[in-house]
């Protein structure tokens, strides 16, 4: 889409043009869904939340000030929704999680996290994807997000900064720490997977 076409398209979106909005959803649905799925590790949650993201876009498109790309703004909404949902889910699981932490059994905690991702990933031939997803879910939320935006969605540091609201320099250092953490998390889940 040329900048002129994009401006015209945006104008239609802001006028709540249903046809334009439908096209917008069809263009971006998979990207939004994939990001949220990787953040939450659950297809069911991702489906529900992705729909909410587009409802929010429709409701609030008039507030988009065009200081960033529309796709960046969409990512920001998806990220905010994901963070809120993660908070909600962690609160919901807090009781159970706390009791596991009290026992000091990290394997059990990881097993609890794994259960989020399991139903969709246990299909044959997808073991590695499952391991990576497990390792991702085990990461700190900000680390997971920066890795997904950079290494899966291929956003630039500047774009990630706009999405997450942190300076590009911070994004950079956070990314390096996140990769190191993911490497270790992956090692752990692989070792656990090798145990009989």
């Amino acid at each position, binding site marked *: 889409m040329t900048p002129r076409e994009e401006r015209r398209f945006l104008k239609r979106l802001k006028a709540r043009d249903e046809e334009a909005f*439908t096209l917008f959803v069809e263009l971006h649905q998979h990207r939004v869904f994939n990001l949220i799925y990787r953040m939450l590790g659950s297809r069911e949650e991702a489906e529900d939340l992705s729909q*909410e993201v587009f409802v929010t876009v429709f409701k609030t498109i008039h507030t988009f000030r065009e200081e960033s790309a529309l796709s960046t703004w969409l990512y920001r909404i998806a990220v905010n929704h994901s963070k809120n949902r993660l908070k909600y889910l962690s609160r919901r699981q807090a009781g159970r999680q706390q009791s596991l932490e009290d026992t000091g059994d990290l394997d059990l905690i990881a097993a609890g996290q794994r259960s989020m991702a399991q139903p969709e990933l246990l299909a044959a031939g997808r073991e590695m994807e499952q391991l990576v997803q497990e390792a991702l879910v085990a990461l700190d939320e900000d680390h997971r997000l920066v890795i997904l935006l950079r290494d899966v969605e291929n956003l630039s540091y500047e774009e990630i900064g706009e999405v997450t609201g942190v300076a590009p320099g911070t994004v950079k250092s956070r*990314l390096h720490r996140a990769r190191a953490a993911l490497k270790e998390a992956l090692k752990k889940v692989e070792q656990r997977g090798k145990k009989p």
Partner: protein
Amino acid sequence: MTANPPVHYIDEQLSAYLEGELTQQEKDALEDHLVHCRRCREAMDELQRTRALLGSLPRQSAPSFFTSRVQGRIRRRSRGRFFSDSLLSSYRIIYLVAPIILVMLAALYILSLAGSDLVDGTTGLGVEELRQQGEGTGDAGQEPVQSTDAGEWLQPDASDGPPATPGGPNGEE
């Protein structure tokens, strides 16, 4: 990062190398170090593998009917103001009405052909002409086709406020 190479590089530095963020001097030092240090080489391999695994993660697609589900949520929350499910406000009506109109036109055409073939042997007049003579009307058997109605149905509902364009290809819920 200092100019003097560390005893061992940490993952953050190796990641910065993979991103091409090191100065030429730092890059050279790291590459020299990797030649001699097995531990850092393995760390680098693991980091590269991790990144490759992330890159190869299959992209998960949104489920079928995603768009129509979003439209449904908006419709419910806007209490039908947007994405109204009414057939009349959707392009889908074309697909429903067009075949009916075509069938009606075809039927009329066939009837008119059949009618012109039926000629009265005694008078030499066709059935239509006989009927016209008998009844004195000129439009017997010619029911008007309500084709303009479909055009009206496709007009957006003015009460919707913003332009109520059709719901799009995924109209099904």
